[in-house]
């Protein structure tokens, strides 16, 4: 048949840009939803246990901020789900048999719980008992967290596809083990790493807002108690985030070594590889990794990367060139070169084409089993068949390098921050003479968001060119749409989300400035009644 379109590189770029835009905006709101849900749940529990009006006022205040933020998370989330279909239609068919299930379960199990009980949390203070309301608050947070589980299962599967098998008759991958998909080690690590990082965001947000009050010498008791709770949540969450990040790094080293090499700007690997602390990688162009020259001004921790990636000081870590040229693994097997993988991928695609041609002509053709077997042998490299040049296999190194350092650097700083603010809040009178700490908390807030987004940038840009690791590159996953249409919707959403983000921040600042002194504007804002 005549094709209406040969895949247009600008279409892929715009489609990726639109998905990235939506995901980045979505992730501005989701961490605060998850993080605040935990903290306001604790505060409302304090109210339930003590019956003190102070705790009710405090919980209601944080719930009002939660409500402003929650709507934006919901609004940006719906676009993300449907973009799999609108912008990545080939992807939707090729792996929809596996990928669709977590999204459906997310809807059935989590979204309904979240959306049902959030209404009680907002509108139910005078309609339900204290216990029912408390349960609703926790169930709202639980629903959001379960939702995160399933969406992270889906994302982890894209990083490390398991529990499936390619079916040449349907031309798609089909699920063979639900448990392998739902409990993939990638999914488990990703869930705990991501969710604990959202608790960090929530804790920093509470500390920052509270410190603003302390700076203004207002609402000091509310601020003091909020910091006490947030600092404990923050310390625990930061430690867990760091620990689960370490587990994730090991998984990345095993299954996505190119991502690790890009994160480290490691061009030539080896044993006992050091971990780069800083280096002057040019942020504006892809380095000439083929030359293998070290980035200038590199300061590194000896054996650090080997230890991080393999948990052995002398462990072997491949660099970009090793992964492109092929190398011998510790177990004696050989990692194929880029060209060999591309060749195997082409063979898989050719075998599939031949299989379908023969099957269409005669479903009992004797050559079919042989072709199916050949396809099975080459299937692990199927996605490489769409790669035209080995350079496509290397993600953009500078952005991965710097994003990883922002995430780890700010994460480390946050641990220090929580220890200091926690110590002062619990052991001293934080309501006076700590102006430097109040300012530090306000500075930490944007830095934390930056680190949170940087984590996703590493996770997603680091696996380029893959929509699904080794299985389907973005060039073969995209829909058949005019690139101009996607460019238009990109700017449409950019403008819309930006305006709404400004509106949200403006509303939040207003709510914070007024605290609970301002009566609710409407009964749809009657969390404070």
């Amino acid at each position: 048949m005549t094709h209406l379109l040969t895949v247009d590189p600008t279409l892929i770029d715009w489609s990726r840009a639109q998905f990235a835009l939506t995901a980045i905006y979505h992730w501005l709101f989701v961490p605060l939803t998850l993080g605040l849900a935990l903290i306001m749940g604790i505060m409302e529990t304090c109210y339930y246990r003590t019956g003190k009006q102070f705790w009710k006022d405090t919980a209601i205040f944080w719930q009002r901020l939660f409500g402003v933020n929650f709507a934006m998370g919901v609004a940006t989330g719906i676009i993300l789900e449907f973009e799999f279909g609108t912008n990545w239609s080939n992807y939707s068919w090729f792996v929809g048999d596996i990928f669709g299930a977590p999204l459906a379960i997310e809807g059935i199990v989590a979204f309904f719980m979240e959306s049902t009980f959030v209404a009680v949390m907002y509108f139910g203070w005078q309609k339900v008992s204290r216990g029912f309301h408390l349960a609703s608050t926790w169930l709202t947070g639980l629903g959001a967290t379960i939702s995160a589980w399933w969406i992270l299962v889906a994302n982890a599967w894209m990083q490390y596809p398991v529990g499936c098998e390619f079916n040449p008759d349907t031309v798609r991958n089909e699920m063979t083990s639900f448990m392998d998909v739902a409990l993939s080690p990638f999914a488990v690590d990703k869930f705990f790493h991501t969710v604990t990082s959202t608790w960090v965001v929530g804790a920093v947000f509470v500390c920052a807002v509270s410190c603003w009050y302390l700076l203004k010498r207002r609402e000091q008791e509310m601020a003091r108690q909020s910091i006490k709770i947030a600092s404990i949540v923050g310390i625990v969450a930061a430690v867990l985030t760091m620990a689960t990040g370490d587990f994730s790094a090991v998984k990345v080293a095993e299954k996505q070594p190119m991502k690790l090499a890009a994160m480290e700007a490691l061009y030539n690997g080896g044993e006992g590889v050091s971990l780069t602390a800083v280096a002057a990688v040019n942020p504006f162009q892809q380095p000439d990794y083929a030359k293998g020259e070290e980035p200038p001004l590199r300061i590194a921790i000896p054996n650090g990367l080997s230890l991080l990636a393999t948990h052995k000081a002398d462990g072997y870590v491949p660099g970009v060139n090793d992964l492109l040229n092929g190398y011998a693994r510790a177990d004696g097997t050989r990692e194929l070169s880029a060209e060999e993988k591309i060749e195997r991928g082409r063979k898989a695609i050719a075998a599939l084409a031949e299989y379908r041609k023969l099957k269409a002509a005669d479903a009992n053709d004797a050559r079919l089993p042989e072709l199916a077997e050949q396809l099975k042998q080459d299937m692990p490299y199927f996605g490489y068949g769409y790669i035209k040049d080995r350079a496509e296999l290397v993600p953009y190194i500078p952005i991965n390098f710097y994003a990883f350092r922002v995430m780890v650097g700010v994460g480390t700083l946050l641990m220090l921050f929580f220890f200091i603010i926690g110590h002062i809040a619990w052991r001293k009178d934080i309501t006076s003479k700590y102006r430097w700490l109040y300012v530090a908390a306000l500075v930490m807030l944007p830095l934390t968001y930056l680190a949170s987004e940087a984590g996703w940038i590493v996770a997603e840009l680091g696996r380029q060119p893959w929509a699904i690791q080794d299985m389907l590159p973005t060039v073969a996953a995209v829909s058949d749409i005019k690139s101009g249409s996607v460019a238009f919707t990109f700017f449409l959403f950019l403008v819309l989300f930006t305006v709404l983000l400004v509106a949200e921040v403006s509303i939040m600042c207003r709510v914070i400035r007024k605290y609970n002194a301002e009566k609710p504007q409407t009964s749809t804002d009657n969390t404070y009644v």
Partner: protein
Amino acid sequence: MTYEFLQQYWWFIVSLLGALLVFLLFVQGANSMVHSIGRTEDGQRKVLESTGRKWEITFTTLVTFGGAFFASFPLFYSTSFGGAYWLWMIILFSFVLQAVSYEFQLKKGNLLGTRTYRWFLVLNGIVGPLLLGGAVATFFDGSNFLVEKASLTDIGAPVISRWANASAGLDALLDPWNLVFGLAVMFLARMLGALYIINNVEDEDIRSRASVRLVGSTVPFLVFFLAFFVRLLLKDGYAVDAQGVVFMEPLKYLHNFLAMPLLAVLTLVGVVLLLYGVGRTIFSNSYVKGIWPAGIGVVIVVLSLLLIAGLGGTAYYPSNADLQSSLTIANSCSSEFTLRTMFYVSLLVPFVFAYIAYVWHVMDRK
């Protein structure tokens, strides 16, 4: 459980979610009339407070409907969403506006002002049901797409599903029958919105204005719906034989009703319930519970229509560009393993409905 049973089961679940979504569009319907029903600032606040407690469920049902369709019929997801890009993007855009407008509309510092956010709600209230209805009508009238799975082996152009023209789905709106059904759904949403407000807002002025709007929406709804329905029974339909070959069959949908008389009876019962709920509300000032029989009636009718579209050897998403590209529940569904796994997950649905009903009951009691 056979593969065939699971396919039909999942078509039923997706149809049920679609039917519930149409019922829950009462939120959109009421919002589209917020200025005329609310009239004063206080009245508008009352209307929006009432729908504000329910909008999340409509939104969630839309998302779950999408997720369930993705999980059970991924070829529809990839073909329709990827092909009819603009149609779906406009729908999504309107729902994004709605989601934030509730929370932001009366907050100080909201940047755009209360009036703007309220107009966003009106926009969603009109565009959402109209385009969703238009999209559903393509189940009976077809769309212009091509599906060629072998394309995946064409390295330069591996896209499986393509729209056959450059309209990216907007051509659906050029088919007058899609518009007729879209308008029917839009007026239906307004009818349900008026019934919901009458039941949920204790304000005689608002109730009386909603009652007027109910009459004003019922008349055009009946005209558009009956026109579409009669034409549906008389038109050629997209049939599929045992080998999966799609062909045009005269009076296909009438035949489907005759072959599945239970669905014919349910459709009739649904219409009667809808008219009963509407009629009694209009003619009895003291009767405010019309949303319940009308809502149940709508769910039954839409469910029956969607079942008629997909069962009984029918292609539920027909292609006018290439008949054999048409989607049937057999050629577009997930694997048997996935459908079976999802079957067990779907057993949670009654539990979900139960707690939603309980929470609504608790929140709405006086």
